[in-house]
């Protein structure tokens, strides 16, 4: 029998984390239809909420959906039940990383980690070092090589980083 068991506690966890009343979703799909990256997701945004409601944690936290959300907020703006689905996606991203779920989109969290790493290092983004680190992490060395060269030639990738004076205070914000 291909039936699945339900875990009704998960929705409460995610609701608390995201600050959204996920139980209010009645699956109208207005969010999905306005979402620019939904066609690329394994579970459309409304399905993500449904999986959360049913408590299918594994499926959700391993999905590509949560990482492909561009936080454009069309979903939150249009939801008739005032649910900001992008905020739910953020909460799920964080829970996925905390839970050690290696999902289908390894590059994206790797990119975010590199970005934050750059802030931790300099207080502001230094593209050159950030991109190199990201490329190493993602092992995606060749992609956009030509774009990178073009940007460097146009002087849009400063070579030397600059530390801000208050770097220590910024680093303290990374307490965890």
């Amino acid at each position, binding site marked *: *029998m*291909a*039936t*699945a068991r*339900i875990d*009704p506690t998960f929705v409460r966890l995610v609701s608390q984390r995201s600050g959204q009343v996920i139980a*209010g979703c*009645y699956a109208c799909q207005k969010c999905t239809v306005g979402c620019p990256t939904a066609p690329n997701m394994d579970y459309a945004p409304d399905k993500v909420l*449904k999986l959360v409601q*049913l408590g299918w944690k594994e499926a959700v936290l391993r999905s590509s959906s949560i990482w492909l959300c561009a936080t454009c907020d069309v979903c939150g703006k249009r939801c008739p039940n005032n649910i900001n689905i992008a905020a739910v996606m953020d909460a799920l991203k964080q829970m996925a990383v905390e839970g050690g779920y290696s999902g289908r989109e390894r590059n994206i969290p790797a990119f975010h980690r590199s970005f934050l790493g750059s802030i931790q290092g300099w207080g502001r983004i230094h593209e050159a070092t950030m991109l190199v680190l990201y490329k190493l992490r993602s092992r995606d060395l060749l992609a956009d090589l030509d774009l990178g060269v073009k940007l460097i030639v146009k002087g849009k990738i400063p070579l030397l980083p600059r530390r801000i004076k208050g770097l220590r205070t910024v680093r303290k914000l990374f307490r965890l």
Partner: protein
Amino acid sequence: MRKIGVFVCHCGTNIAGVVNVPQVVEEAGKLPDVAYAVDYKYLCSEPGQKLIREAIAEKGLDGVVIAACSPRMHESTFRSATEEAGLNPYQCEIANIREQCSWVHQHEKDKATEKAALIIRSMVEKTKRNEPLEPIGIPLTKRALVIGAGIAGIQAALDIANGGYEVVLVERLPSIGGHMAQLAETFPTLDCSQCILTPKTVETGKHKKIKLLTYSEIEEVKGYVGNFDVKIRRKASYVDWSKCTGCGLCQEKCPQKVTSDFEGRLGTRKAIYTLSPQAVPNKPVLDRDNCRYFQTGKCQICAKLCPVGAVDYTQQDTIVEEKVGAIVVATGYDLFPKAKIGEYGYGEYADVIDGLQFERLLSASGPTAGEVRRPSDGKVPKEVVFVQCVGSRDPEKGMPYCSKICCMYTAKHAMLYKHKVPDGQAYVFYMDIRAGGKGYEEFVTRAMEEDHVLYLRGRVSRIFQDGDKLIVWGADTLSGKQVEIAADMVVLATAIVPSAGAKDLAQKLRISTDEFGFFNEAHPKLRPVESLTQGIYLVGAGQAPRDIPEAVAQASGAASKVQALFSGEKLVQEPTIAVVDAEVCAGCGICVGACPYEARILNPLRHIAQVNEALCQGCGACVVACPNKASQLRGLSSVQMMAMIDTLV
């Protein structure tokens, strides 16, 4: 020589766009007996009617033919205008040249014009032979009978009684309140049901103009609107209610416990019992079939203990006769038995219950004093599954209709369960959520958002027992998954069906029911509280599934119709009904059997047919049946019919 006026209406382009109106007017004007012929754009308008009135006065017309739309539209309009001009309204006839001419021959204008002229000529021929007629007055008993004392019946009775008329309120259970008395709290306010009901039941019990007959059923109904003769069987309660003080000692001491229907068969009552502590009237009845004395000859404790000696084992059923002018049918609903649903266990599983049973569990006065406990072992269930649409929206089970109230009461049940068992989990399987009333949608949303009831969109395919759990196999179509829940208790929202015995009552009253047994209203949109039988009104769930606010509104609506009926001195009947030519009638009696309204008898003394003018609807079946042409319709005699046919053919 008659002086008939012919008025031809253009009806905008409805008639004039097809029929050559000027030509038709000219031809009509040349007919013998026609003194005046004219046309007008919209005869039904104020200026149009004025035209007719003035023509009658100025030209001294003694008959009027209006060539226009169907008489169903404006016959009464034009007859009123005629009457205002001082001419007997039954001298006004309608020639239908729209629905029966211009509208159906739009592409054959010449032929349509010819036909219109013919129709007018035939109506002139009829009108020539019309006689002035007066409406018939029928005497009227200004008392009402209300059958069924649930919330709808109670409301109707109170409204009619407060309007100043006496009401006989008949209820087959020992006390009033119906299903509403079984409920714990009502949506969407979560008012305690007894708290909002008892003011009404108490008022009903005390009302000087309400004759309350409980533990009674309708035995026979004869008569017609304004004049019903009703026989009511008062079942033997074996307690003299005139002596009984309602002290409750008999009930307390009775040794015999009986499974209680009022408690949804989840609790017991005694053989001598009242339905609830707040029963109106607060008088017990003795259930003979379960009484030790009646079954074995032993006991008699109630008789021995009663301080006023009210117990009387010799009591018999009695028949009470009442005369009333109007009847309100408020017999309500039952739930479709879960014993008929195989895939959910044929009612065999103790912990699979229906909505009314769950209400009793939630009720403070119920079998578990308001605690939600499993009927099987008394444990508090932690996983409860509610299943909507059980039998409803199910042509396979014979009920394709929606039972209307289940979405709301299921949300209520789930919420109340969560309030009583906060660490429990409630699941609802639904098809759609129908929450159209005021505050209803917000109520259901509250169940989802505040009480964390998990709503799963899909039906339940099977429920079966596994150890002490009930396995529920259902669907969640929104995720596309089949789900399995191991439940401690399942509550089925079973379909609303008409109350047992409704069909028999319908036959006694000679009103019709639909294929499901709900009483038929006269018109679903415009006449929702009347049956097709004059003088009989329908309220509450006996007519269709409905919730309490609708039942109350409908009851008040019916009450106002009853009061309108009672407002005149007499009832008025159209005179265009059957009449017997006494000279010609041979007393054969064929017409009596032919009449579908039972409106004819053979007068025993004179041996000729006699028409009951209140019941006759003027259908003409007797005219066809009579071999002697002794039966005629006033205003449409055989002579008139032949004259019209001669014109047309």
